[in-house]
């Protein structure tokens, strides 16, 4: 059905998307927890910064990444001199761009599920001898888990669909940074590429739809649980 080249594109997209959500997961959870549970000065600013990639033109996000992580950028120079690592024109750069674009969606989904935790259950755990940390691992996190998984799926779908920031930051290199949307874009430029465009586009629709249904199911499961519990 798919050619070897197309399989390579799919494999690369899955690799980029997987790496992106794994980078984002702990950061997004920490931010979601901070925003859901804590009132601190500058909270609105943090909230706005988290949401920025959602509203900023992706090309601007890509350009900012280019400035920061490019060979003369502050972060890029530091990575280069300390670790000999460069993200420029590499799949890792594509993963970083995708991670940043997925962050707001993941924070939103996790924040909702954290806000949905009945905090009185944490109080009950404390009276039973649980330290705050133990109560977090045994009560809060398991109760937030469906939301965290939903965020993971949503972030993954968003990551494999990332276009603007990726092409700006790491260009469109076959086998390295040419993920599904970039491959579709490239195929559109080539005469006779319609069949490939159709196949890859259908694949994109299927992946995105599957992810949305899965994450919706996960969220419903949490709410169902709570409704049955009679909250």
């Amino acid at each position, binding site marked *: 059905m798919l050619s070897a080249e197309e399989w390579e594109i799919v494999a690369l997209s899955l690799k980029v998307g997987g790496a992106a959500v794994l980078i984002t997961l702990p950061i997004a959870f920490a931010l979601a927890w901070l925003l859901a549970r804590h009132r601190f000065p500058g909270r609105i600013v943090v909230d706005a910064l988290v949401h920025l990639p959602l509203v900023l033109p992706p090309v601007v996000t890509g350009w900012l990444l280019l400035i920061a992580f490019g060979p003369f950028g502050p972060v890029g120079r530091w990575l280069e001199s300390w670790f000999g690592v460069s993200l420029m024109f590499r799949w890792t750069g594509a993963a970083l761009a995708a991670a940043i674009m997925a962050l707001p969606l993941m924070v939103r989904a996790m924040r909702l599920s954290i806000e949905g935790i009945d905090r009185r259950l944490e109080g009950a755990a404390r009276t039973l001898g649980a330290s705050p940390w133990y109560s977090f691992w045994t009560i809060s996190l398991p*109760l937030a888990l469906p939301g965290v998984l939903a965020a993971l799926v949503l972030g993954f779908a968003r990551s494999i669909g990332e276009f603007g920031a990726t092409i700006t930051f790491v260009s469109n290199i076959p086998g390295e940074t040419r993920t599904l949307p970039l491959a579709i874009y490239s195929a559109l430029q080539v005469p006779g590429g319609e069949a490939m465009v159709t196949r890859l586009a259908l694949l994109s629709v299927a992946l995105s739809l599957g992810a949305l249904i899965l994450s919706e199911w996960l969220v419903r499961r949490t709410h169902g649980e709570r409704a049955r519990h009679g909250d």
Partner: protein
Amino acid sequence: MANGRAMAIDIDVAKRLGDRTIAAQFTAGPGLTALFGPSGVGKTSILNMVAGLLRPDRGHIRIGAQTLFGDGVDLPPEARRIGYVFQDGRLFPHRRVRANLLYGHGLADPAARWMSLDEAVDFLGIGGLLGRWPHSLSGGEAQRVAIGRALLRGPDCLLLDEPLSSLDAARRGDIMAVIERIRDELKLPILYVSHDRAEVERLATSVVEIGE
């Protein structure tokens, strides 16, 4: 079982919540001490202060020789060895009954435990519920499990916050009998919040009126 401790609970606390002040001063001896008064005077807040879930503005809370709050001490809830049965049960919805019962038991210092899972299950008659999820329990069943969970934590005293309020008349009688047995057989000091005079008359060893 509850090695018949007859320790006094000495409470003198005040807390400003919004535009009202909750204050209470009393000493509770052995048996069941009912905190009695109309709804909304802060009876539950007093239990929360004893449990360490709400911090008093001033005063002290002592059980026997141990200071839980006051004189620069403010023990966190997990260090207080108090069993708390909440009005709404507050069972953990993602854990089966057995795991709910054992949550505090596993965390307690082995020397502090005075009841085993089997003893608690027999005492409360909840043997058939161990594999069930909390959402599948009736109100009376959930309240028994909540009581069991609090007892298995190995507490020095038990806080009961209107444990009968969500139950029908038949179940109330059952749970009242359980509470009487905790008072008489286990000899565990109990602080009991209620606004129902009949309940208090039946259960209380002594009554503390809480009001404006």
